[in-house]
């Protein structure tokens, strides 16, 4: 029996067009290097109140590096606080539920409609990051849904295959998610101790001076020869608290200094992002 209640698509399947990559660019030896200073993040565009039906929403856009790679475009909507369904047990504080979803067309590899492990992972990280900022006991017995759709995930065509860099891109996406969710929460009027923003710092090895690895904020993996380690940090600037820390990569075990430096750089990136966030919210309020 056919399903008649929904409008179904055509029976046959179609394949999305896959364009051939342009490997010439790479082979010519043309390599994009980082043009920004090591401690400056990319410019971002943030706007709140984009979804009329949600109680709070925000849109974040981080410009692309300008070498044909795509930027990051996120849209977040916050629904709530709203009463929990009767079936759920009593909760003395607000229950956060976060959903992060890549649009099927967001990345080079087409995403499915069902959340994959990466997206679920991002959701968990986001929840941890936000839970530290929300004053949760002001809303007992209620819940809030934070839904982020990644309209354009930043991934460079050329480099995505060459390096296994998906993890680094995921970090960038997470930092964006944290920032945009924080803006949307503020737009929804949910009380927070502070605005939380995400920042990424990475230990990279550049092509030119292969000797010394350096630390950069807001890394774009394609701009560097190799990314050795990276960390994504969610930071509350007023309270000087880190609510979420995600560290990944190989560091020489002897050098604990690099570890701290990486985190400090991450905090610095987060603070830069936070200024955009504060600026955007000021615009809305004033």
């Amino acid at each position: 029996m056919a399903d008649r209640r929904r409008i179904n698509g055509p029976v046959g399947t179609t394949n999305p067009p896959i364009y051939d990559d342009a490997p010439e660019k790479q082979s010519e030896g043309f390599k994009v290097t980082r043009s920004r200073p090591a401690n400056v993040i990319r410019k971002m565009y943030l706007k709140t109140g984009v979804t009329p039906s949600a109680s709070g929403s925000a849109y974040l856009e981080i410009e692309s590096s300008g070498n044909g790679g795509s930027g990051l475009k996120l849209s977040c909507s916050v629904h709530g606080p709203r009463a929990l369904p009767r079936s759920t047990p009593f909760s003395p504080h607000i229950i956060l539920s976060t959903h992060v979803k890549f649009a099927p067309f967001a990345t080079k590899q087409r995403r499915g409609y069902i959340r994959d492990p990466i997206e679920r992972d991002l959701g968990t990280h986001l929840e941890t990051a936000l839970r530290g900022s929300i004053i949760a006991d002001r809303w007992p017995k209620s819940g809030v849904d934070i839904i982020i759709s990644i309209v354009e995930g930043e991934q460079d065509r050329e480099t995505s295959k060459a390096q296994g860099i998906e993890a680094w891109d995921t970090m960038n996406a997470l930092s964006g998610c944290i920032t945009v969710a924080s803006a949307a929460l503020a737009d929804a009027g949910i009380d927070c101790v502070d605005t939380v923003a995400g920042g990424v710092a990475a230990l990279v090895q550049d092509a030119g001076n292969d000797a010394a690895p350096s630390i950069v904020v807001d890394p774009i993996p394609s701009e560097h020869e190799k990314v050795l380690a990276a960390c994504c940090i969610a930071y509350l600037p007023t309270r000087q608290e880190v609510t979420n820390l995600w560290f990944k990569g190989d560091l020489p075990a002897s050098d604990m200094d690099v570890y701290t430096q990486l985190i400090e750089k991450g905090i610095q990136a987060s603070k830069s992002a936070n200024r955009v966030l504060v600026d955007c919210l000021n615009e809305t309020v004033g």
Partner: protein
Amino acid sequence: MARHQNIRNLDYEAELEEYGAFSDEEEEELSPEDQVRMREGTAQVLEALGVEAHKVPKTQIEESLWHYYWDVDKTITYLISKYIDPPKKPAKTAPPKTAPKQDAAIASASRQSFAHLFRDLPWGNIPPERQAVLIPPPQLPAGLLGGSGAPPKMSKLQQLAAARKKKAEEKSASGEVEQTQVKMTELTVNDNQASKENRPLAGVFGKRVKISETTAQGRIPLTMAEPTRPEIPQAQAPEATPSQHQEEDPIDPEPAVAPPKAQPSAFASTLFGPSSDSPKRRPREVFALPYMAISSYSPDAFGKPSPDDVVLAAQAKVATAGKKSANVHNKKGSSSADGVTNQVSQLKIDDTPLPKSRNLNVLSEFEKQKGKKTASFVVVGHVDAGKSTMMGRLLLDLNVVDQRTVDKLRKEAEKIGKTSFALAWVLDQRHEERSRGVTIDIATNRFETETTSFTILDAPGHRDFIPNMIAGASQADFAILVIDASTGAFESGLKGQTREHSLLIRSMGVSRIIVAVNKLDTVNWSQERFDEITHQVSGFLTATGFQPKNIAFVPVSGLHGDNLVRKSTDPAASWYTGKTLVEELEASEPSARALAKPLRMTISEVMRTPQSSISITGRIDAGSLQMGDALLVQPSGEKAYVKSLQVDDGEPADWAVAGQNVVLHLSNIDPIHVRVGDIVCDPAKPIQCVDTFTLKALAFDILMPMQVDVHRGRLHAAGKIEAIDAILDKVTGKVTKKKPMIVKPGTVSRVRVTLHSKVPLEAGQRVVLRSGGQTVAAGLLE
């Protein structure tokens, strides 16, 4: 009782004095034991204080000992905290009298605290970046919290409050300004303090809190002149960060660069519209008219209606005029002012395209037509008298039905063992009629002779189907009474339906009757038998009311066809020299048609045809109609139009007159309003629907107030005889007896009949009253 006495005798003054004396005494001096304790305690305290003992006066020690009730430990703690090592305000608490003695202690204390305390105070020379700037209180977005950038939703209460507030503001606008100024000066005094307080609360949240505080106090909020930004945490002070890192980059880029804000991308600007700060391009407000430069252009070319419009307007005018005149023609009956208004409203209502009437003068057309006469006759008689067989034979002999059809029917009849019914099956076409061997409903068929075209109405002979026979008889001009001449059958018939049928057809108004004495071949064409039957039947018919000149007798054999179309070839029948049945039929003059009367037609059948969803058949009782005429269907009272019509044998025609059997294809009517037995009439002179009427009735049976069925053609309705008004004389019509209890058979009476429902009936119509399957009376409506 004793307590009462005591209280009454109480000396209050004495009592009070005693108490007061005691307290005074207590204050003055201690008891010897206490004095001893005091001495011991003081010694202990002094010992415990040791070097610091000189700081504390002795009286204080004693006092505190007394206060703590000789608890030495507590006293010491108190004294230390009070005099020797005061924790908080050492400058203030250190008594000035003791100051000269303890130089060292004071000096050390001031070195620690004061410089540190006032280090940051500018003492009047406030740097501009610290000066407060007054900004108007922020307009918090009215309405409900959260949501989007869309205009805020306001609850009703909020709207009310806003309106009230606005009014109040207008009233006291000037006064308030002064007030705020006063408050502002107030604020500038403790400017320093305010800014200090606010400083830790940087960022948006700090700002929010500040706003809420100040608005709560009714003050104007202050903000720092420099842009708010998260303060650099102390934890990241230089000593925390590695020095190598420090020199590599000046860790905080924030103070130098603006927040890294980007312009929206093309995608974002499409989504949210152009950003507010980008200059808007004003659309051009003036558009040049095209073709202005061309010399042939004239601006007023379209001022007048176009040639097409002119033509269309003229056509529309003509069309409406034509319709109006047509409708006026249809409603020619009414001429009063009311009629005119009715017509006008009619024009508006009936805007569906109606069938076009050709507006013929039907009567003159009918006279002009040099055609054959039309006549219809009903064949009646007792059951199994051979009516259908005789008609079948007649049709076969007249070549209306060919031999092959009859052979086929004969073969079928043989199959079920009823060979003799083959001819009857020409007319009895229903399955039920064939299997039972009797006619149930009237069957119509047509045949033509040289002069006349006839319609046969073959009526059922069985007594159960008398209503159908009545329906048939009501459409007939004359009748053929078929009598079974075989032995015994004639006699039973005379008692049965032969009698009833002849009574009925007479009361239905049929005056001409041809008696066909059938099945004479079974009695070997016996002339005696024929004469005997002739004698009996003519006597009976004359008694029924037929005039002798209108009665004709023909000996026939329906099965073999003798004396139907051709003369009998049987030598035994050679004694009969009269006319054949067909010759008799041609000799019959059809009754006069009521052509000039208003239209009346009883519907005998309703069906669906390709021409129309609703087609009706019937015989026009009176009047005439033509294509496009409006008709009124009673008793539903609905109007219909004749889309097209077919006359007699299904030939399309433009008009029809009384006496013709027609098929009318109707339009503009719902099929539920048209039923068999309804009457179609002229809307200008409609037939009335009545439920009570008076009847001049000829009784066939005993009449008394009782339940009866009233039959008129196809129409039949249940009712009852309400009253019998009078018995009339048969010939003169005079009243012979008033209000009789019963009416005897054969007498004429005036009865009042009430029906259960309204049916279309009018004076001059003939109806039949039946009760319990018997015809009890027939009569004329008055």
